[in-house]
């Protein structure tokens, strides 16, 4: 007969509650982090909240020369050449068949083993967060990670 009110491990109890991210989610988060490195801006357009009225600034300043033939505005070109990435690749195949294209020129995958750096302080490290797979070097960095980013941080 098992004793219902017996001793139980506090560590295991906490462990059970903790969510562990699966590999697919970890991969998705890693990809998001990489994509963020290519962002232009991380904040909203400071002119985005301007209300259109008479005093509102004209964003498409007319910089074009007045003499000669009438110039097409910048907006014309915005739509004229706008192509999705897929369209660009497709067109490239037609125009330059059997040649090396932009995607082929990417460098191959790394051959050296991955190096790990502490997500908090940036030094080389050897421990892995059980929940999200982030790396840390010491207990203090682990605590910082748990308090701030672990599962709270996306992108």
């Amino acid at each position, binding site marked *: 007969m098992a004793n219902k009110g017996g001793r139980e491990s506090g560590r295991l109890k906490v462990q059970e509650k903790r969510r562990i991210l699966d590999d697919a989610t970890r991969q998705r988060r*890693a*990809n998001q*982090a*990489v994509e*963020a*490195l*290519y*962002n*232009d*801006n*991380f*904040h909203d*357009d*400071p*002119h985005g909240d*301007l209300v259109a009225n008479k005093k509102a*600034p004209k*964003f*498409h*300043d007319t*910089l*074009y020369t007045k003499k000669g033939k009438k*110039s*097409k505005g*910048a*907006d014309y*070109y*915005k739509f*004229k*050449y*706008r*192509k999705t990435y897929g*369209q*660009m*690749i497709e*067109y*490239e195949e037609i*125009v*330059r068949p059997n*040649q*090396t294209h*932009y995607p082929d*020129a*990417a*460098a*191959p*995958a*790394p*051959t*050296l083993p*991955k*190096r790990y*750096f502490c997500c*908090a*302080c*940036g*030094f*080389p490290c050897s421990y892995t967060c059980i929940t999200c797979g982030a790396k840390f070097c010491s207990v203090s960095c682990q605590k910082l990670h748990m308090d*701030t*980013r672990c599962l709270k941080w996306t992108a």
Partner: protein
Amino acid sequence: MPSAYVLDNGAYSIKVEHSNAAQPKLVPNCIMKAKSEKKRLFIGDQIDDCRDASGLFYLLPMNKGLIVNWDLQKSVWDYILSKDCCPANFAETPCIYMEPYFNYASVQEGVAEIFFEEYECQSFLRIPTGDLAEYHYRKQNPAAPCCLVIDAGYSFSHVAAYINGKRDPKATKRIDVGGKVLTNHLKEIISYRQLNVMEETYVMNQVKEDCCFVSLDLKADFAKSKLKYPENDIVREYILPDFTTLRRGYVHTLDQPPVVDQQKLRMNNERFSVPELLFHPSDVGIQQIGLAELVHHCVELCPEEARSHLYENIIITGGTSQFPGFVDRLYKDVRALASDEYNINITLPPDPTTYSWQGGKLISQDPEFYSFVVTKEEYYEEGPIILLERFDGVS
């Protein structure tokens, strides 16, 4: 000698001037919105007029080296060609337009249409930036049969092998790490560790330029940056600009009296772990080999008889190569990878940013220059197909 109009359309800065000038003008290839001035936009180098460059919002025409926002690109070019910046008379002046490797035909056609139909260019030459770096190198070293160009730019970095002046497209490879990734990574780690600077691209780019260096011995530098100040000669303080008394931040070494009334950043292992991404993109999860390995990889893709010449004639261009220690580290890593029968010689020009532009200046004086260009008549006669025929052959 009639001059040509040389325009290197970089994703970060456009290098532009007539070929009879000594140096090109550098104009940021973007339009910026400032929080402090809601009445205007800042195009290119107009940002120098902006009092408060904090929280700048960037509108970039290019993404990953491809022109994606044509309206922005057109506005920047219009500004460059206006009398405030660098006007040109295209009826008499040929135009040399420089673009990245493997640009898409749809982008190239758009560029040609704008230059021929909008700016009424009489003759137009489109050429990859790296090809002109190679041309410049060949003019300086006529005896070199091969050349390896390393172009570390804003969107990405390329390594390209040239044999007898001709580029091998199979041995032209790209790492998706450039100045933009480095600045964004620096912003990310500083924002987590010290102060939220995610909005301060302009300032953090200056921090990167002023503070960062390429480590020659990563392990030793990490060990050193773990120590306290007097033993640790890596740690610096960066005094941030406040745009009232201080317009540009500066590096402050700890042996000077401390600055108390300004916001500052402590730059320790950030100084070298950021440019380290060029040599190990996998450190941030970009699944590609580093620059030194890529040099080795590209040389290995070339025929064996060319390899020794390629290793002996490595030329570096692009603004991201300006970190202190870049060449030494590259030499060290390539030396370790290459077979010891090869000599390695890496050249860093005094100004790597404008090295390719200087190549454009030289090609405009080439006796055969006019056989490279496409004229307006040819373009109107045969359409965009003539661009492919002529420029894909030129190298």
